[in-house]
């Protein structure tokens, strides 16, 4: 609590405490966090990067010109004669790939798949984590034991091995789809969120306002959603932001290993895989997607760190 000195707590003028003037502007938790964030240059750097990558994913035509046209539906200007040209300022900024397609356009289009997978995998992770962590923390006892031990079991499973198992279970004769990768990544990350959210729920549920709500006769659903969630979700949101960055790299790793996204999709991981055996002669095929990957991943991780500092009262 960072309350300013309130004159109404002084004995002599205590009776004036009921007038409206001395209360000040409405201040909220998010408002306080914003006040802290806007003074941090790293926040602005990561925000700028995130805005760039998100618009790149949603409106790639803003970054690639000319936009795809009827005679060049991909917008990649593929010419087989131009295979593996190096970067140049004149025509192909980032050079071309094996098929002679413009690499700058490809790297730009790659943002969509990478960010989509990261976003939905994180949503699955956080959704499952908050649901299970909330139930485990709030009800405790047997339910808590079951959920926590299951989470521990998932921790014992190496991430990549787990992802390979889930992916091979999901893959059908139609081949691998983007959502398979999303589900595989999302279904493995929740145990960390369960632990985190459960521990904050354990703290918050003891607070008097939660007890007060129980004494009022509020339902468990109401207590969990109205009283516990808003007060316990901040650390999980921070984790989710950092995890966005991590998932971007995990997706690239899986794709690089050839067990990730379908080979015909455009993603940074797939590009890395295709570039892996050509780096001696065409290093640009590796450097550009790697640079984007690191920048995007770092942007989310840095943003998460800034949010953590803004939300955590110990940093205030």
């Amino acid at each position: 609590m960072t309350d300013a000195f309130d004159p109404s707590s002084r004995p002599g003028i205590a009776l004036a405490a009921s007038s409206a003037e001395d209360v000040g502007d409405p201040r909220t938790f998010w408002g306080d966090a914003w006040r802290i964030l806007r003074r941090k240059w790293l926040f602005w750097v990561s925000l700028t990067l995130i805005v760039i990558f998100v618009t790149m994913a949603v409106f790639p035509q803003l970054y690639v010109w000319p936009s795809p046209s009827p005679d060049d539906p991909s917008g990649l200007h593929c010419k087989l004669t131009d295979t593996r040209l190096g970067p140049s300022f004149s025509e192909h900024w980032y050079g071309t790939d094996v098929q002679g397609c413009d690499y700058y356009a490809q790297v730009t289009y790659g943002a969509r798949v990478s960010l989509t997978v990261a976003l939905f995998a994180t949503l699955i992770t956080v959704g499952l984590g908050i649901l299970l962590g909330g139930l485990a923390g709030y009800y405790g006892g047997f339910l808590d034991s079951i959920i926590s031990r299951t989470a521990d079991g998932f921790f014992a499973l190496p991430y990549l091995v787990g992802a390979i198992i889930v992916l091979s279970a999901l893959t059908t004769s139609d081949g691998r789809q983007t959502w398979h990768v999303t589900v595989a990544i999302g279904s493995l990350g929740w145990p960390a969120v369960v632990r985190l959210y459960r521990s904050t729920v354990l703290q918050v549920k003891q607070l008097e306002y939660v007890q007060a709500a129980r004494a009022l006769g509020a339902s468990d659903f109401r207590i969990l959603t109205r009283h516990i969630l808003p007060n316990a979700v901040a650390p999980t949101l921070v984790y989710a932001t950092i995890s966005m960055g991590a998932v971007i790299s995990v997706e690239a790793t899986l794709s690089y290993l050839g067990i990730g996204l379908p080979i015909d999709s455009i993603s940074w991981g797939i590009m890395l895989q295709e570039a892996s055996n050509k780096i001696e002669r065409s290093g640009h095929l590796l450097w550009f997607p790697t640079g984007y990957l690191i920048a995007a991943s770092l942007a989310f991780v840095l943003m998460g760190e800034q949010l953590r500092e803004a939300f955590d009262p110990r940093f205030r």
Partner: protein
Amino acid sequence: MTSTESALPPPSGAPYAPSSDALLSVRGLVKEFPQRGGLPGRPLPPVQAVSGIDFDVPAGKTHGLVGESGCGKSTVARTVLRLEKPTAGAAMFEGADLFGMDRTALRDARRNIQIVFQDPFASLNPRMTVQTIIEEPLVIHGVSSGDEREARVADLLRRVGLSPEHANRYPHQFSGGQRQRVGIARALALEPRLIIADEPVSALDVSIQAQVVNLLRDIQDESGVGYLFIAHDLAIVRNISDLVSVMYLGKIVETGTRDEIFDHASHPYTKALLSAVPEPNPVTERVRQRIVLEGDVPSPADPPSGCRFRTRCWKAQEQCIHEVPALIDRGAGHPVACHFPE
């Protein structure tokens, strides 16, 4: 005070039936907390927070429950509200058995029993506006809707001495006393028959304490609500209570009307507590004899045999080690749990 005397335990001290005319009637309430740890086969003994207490809160009256911190006062409040499961005992509220209620019955009962907490900083959800906090009981119990609800919140705010303009503020924008008023407004929203006030003023400045206590008294005069008023500050209990019970280590050691306890205390512990209250009159204050108790409160996990107060009592004798003193009238005119009352 004939009406309040009927609510007192009968002089016999034998277990007695819940009184039906009291608003809240608690009999034989026991709450033990199991301790984790200990060797296999030799578990640690449970912490005996409340060890069999009886009391009544008559309608429209205030029963003050006094004792040092850790004596089990707050556990009594939480157990009566069913925030904790009682180990044993019974509690009748307006003739209905609180501890035997199922979820639906309990929900309805909770309309009529509200609580005001000690810490005005922790008892209001920091993410909710005052409007949302005060209207929550109305929403939960489906009372009134929309504009009517807003008007009711404004009304409640005025009643506790705040301005309706405060409705859109967040709790951290208020001082401690103002927040406690918000907490009281929330407790009043459903027009309960009983309010359990768990140290409602001990976190506040002394000057604010008087205001909040006066507010509680005014509310009682207007609405006829009954209070179970839990506190460790005797001056405040004296101000607001009709009946007083003194608790020590999970048991009631002395109970009676306010005047019986404050003017004719007969349990050594009550006497020691009263001797610690400063006199407002400097002349009498100069001659005030303080009884300083030696030692600390024993652990409720391993309470002393016989009389629980004997380890700190200057009158303790052999009998106190072997025999638990019953809470009966021993000639003082009100029940006292001591073998050698004064």
